[in-house]
């Protein structure tokens, strides 16, 4: 029961619901709902398509407990965990990117740029290349060892970047530059490791580095889901000050916000989100960088909208998973390749379209 009050500011109508009040703006809301519909559609497709086709209606029936035995096994045991991993990873990357771009006031800032995913990548590549057989170990080590190592690498890199950028507080410009330095270090270490091992290990490491959802089961979904369920609400609550953090530091302090504390906490949240996503599916690049920018252009907001960035990130990764599993016959391309092939043209289209509008 929203009760709309006339306001003097065009396009910003106050909305009140009992004790809660806020600003109701249609465009971001429509973008978010559209994104959710898109996400549901690609998710159903991802679960339904494959060697054994299941129609969208049957997919939905199976998900709520219907369907025959074969469908239940295929959906619940094989495809659902993988699709869920894709969804969670995409959402985490989208949110992480949106926070970082706002904090750094830079559209190029993303977990890849700040060295987080590279740190995870270096750690994982070390295990694959130098561990001899560790990369191909079956069982617990392959399931938990590599993700844990990647998680540790990402977190340590994030902490290192923050610590190195800290000098009587963290200035966002310095943070970005330190991140780039650390990122270069980790990235080059990774490339060097690729030349050290033999070509099979290098190939395996490269698949992991591209980001792959191959053979992802419930054991990947559960930890990722738990981490996200804890983090996302916290982040969204903490992010109410993000709007103010997009101004320069003196202004933010003038508004009475503890810059270093809030920035530190939000940055840590973004780092953890990106590290968890990387641990689950490898460093899927481009999602964290592009989806916040896509969401921003669709929602017409001044900074990347958090919820929409999450939804579009999830939709991009799930959609890419559909294509990577089904488009190339028996050959399965790593999902990280497809995210770029899907996302890049769309971002370019949005860039072009905005300029047409300006010209018109």
């Amino acid at each position, binding site marked *: 029961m929203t009760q709309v009050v006339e306001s003097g500011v065009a396009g910003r109508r106050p909305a009140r619901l009992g004790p809660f009040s806020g600003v109701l703006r249609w465009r971001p809301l429509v973008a978010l709902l559209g994104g959710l519909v898109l996400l549901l559609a690609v998710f159903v497709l991802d679960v339904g398509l494959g060697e054994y086709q299941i129609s969208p209606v049957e997919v939905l029936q199976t998900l709520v407990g219907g369907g025959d035995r074969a469908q239940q096994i295929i959906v619940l045991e094989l495809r659902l965990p993988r699709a869920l991993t894709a969804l969670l990873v995409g959402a985490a990357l989208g949110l992480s990117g949106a926070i970082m771009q706002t904090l750094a006031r830079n559209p*190029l800032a993303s977990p890849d740029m700040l060295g987080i995913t590279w740190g995870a990548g270096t750690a994982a590549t070390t295990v694959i290349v130098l561990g001899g057989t560790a990369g191909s170990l079956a069982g617990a080590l392959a399931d938990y060892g590599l993700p844990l190592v990647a998680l540790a690498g990402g977190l340590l890199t994030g902490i290192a970047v923050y610590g190195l950028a800290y000098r009587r507080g963290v200035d966002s410009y310095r943070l970005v530059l330190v991140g780039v330095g650390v990122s*270069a*270090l980790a*990235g*080059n270490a990774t490339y060097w490791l690729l030349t050290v091992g033999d*070509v099979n290990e290098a190939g395996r490491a490269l698949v992991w580095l591209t980001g792959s959802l191959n053979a992802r089961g419930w054991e990947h979904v559960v930890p990722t889901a738990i981490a996200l369920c804890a983090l996302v609400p916290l982040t969204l609550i903490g992010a109410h000050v993000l709007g103010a953090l997009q101004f320069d530091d003196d202004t933010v302090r003038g508004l009475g916000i503890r810059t270093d504390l809030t920035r530190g906490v939000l940055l840590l949240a973004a780092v953890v989100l990106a590290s968890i996503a990387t641990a689950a599916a490898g460093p899927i690049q481009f999602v964290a960088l592009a989806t916040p920018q896509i969401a921003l252009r669709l929602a017409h907001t001044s900074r990347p909208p958090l919820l929409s960035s999450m939804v579009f990130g999830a939709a991009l990764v799930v959609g890419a998973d559909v294509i990577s599993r089904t488009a190339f016959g028996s050959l399965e391309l790593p999902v990280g390749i497809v995210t770029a092939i899907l996302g890049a043209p769309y971002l370019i289209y949005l860039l*072009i379209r905005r300029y*047409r509008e300006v010209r018109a």
Partner: protein
Amino acid sequence: MSGSLAVGGPRAAEQAAPGGARLRERRRRRLIGIAVLVVALLVSCVLSVVVGAKTIPLAEVWSGLFAPTGTENDLIIRELRVPRTIVGVLAGAALGLAGALMQGHTRNPIADPGILGITQGAALGVVLAIYTFSVTTLVGFIWFGFAGAMLGALAVFAIGSIGRGGPTPVTLALAGTAISFLLQAITSALVLTDQQTMDTYRFWKVGSIAVTDPSVIPQVLPFVLIGMVLALTNAGGLNALSLGEDVARSLGHRVEWSRRAGIAAIAVLVGSAVAICGPIGFVGLIVPHVARFFTGADYRWLLPFAGLLGAALVLLADVLGRIVARPSEVQVGVMLAMVGAPFFIALVRRRKMVRL
């Protein structure tokens, strides 16, 4: 930000008494800085010829350079180390210059000259060369790499400049990133489906200035020189642009032309460097920031500084790479990051940054 950016020439401002002394002081510091850099570059050139995996006595280095008799050591000096030094200077200077231009035109401190689609375009060109024609020699790579770099830059520039007002910093950066990722995805797809390609590509990817065939130098030299001239003539336009586009326009600068010349210079410089050495990423990103500490924001000083610094840095990193893992070598791209990144981070922590 105390840099006087009087576009009509700062001489008038320098006559003013209190500020004049400071400006003269700054000019002196810049001149000393340039002199120090020239000396550093010469020293690194000498080191690059003298130091290597094989220890050659100084006397033999001398005779190898000026009175060759055809011994094995003479061959090493003349066929390997001298070309390698020349390539290092060219690539380093090109990348340093291109990085300064890139950050100036995008107004973004983390805009690597590679994100204009140049590096990834070159990588795709090289991978296509390996994949379709089984080219594995450097001479074969060069033109594929160069063509890929140019096409990548052209695509980014075309997308970034659709609409009135030409390319803006944000569209350039985002279009460049999007295209780069797209090209990278195609490259990865090719590399992952073919082990032979993968094996050659992973070594190219690291970046190295150890040329196996000196004949590539005269091939790319004209391009690098054209790029350098273009870059240096871009300084005035960049100074105006750093005041904001509207101000630059009202001062009578032709912003679009300045942008086009700048992007062309970046494409030619980075394209040449990547074609010879592979993607050496770090130099273009870091060098401009380090140079800015010494020169301030004036691009007429910043550009030559960045060029010299880039050349010296690449050579020194390469020399170190020959020493650390004897008898094998660590590629220059890796060494640059290992040595350069900590230094850069320390610098960022220590100094008040000059903002873009």
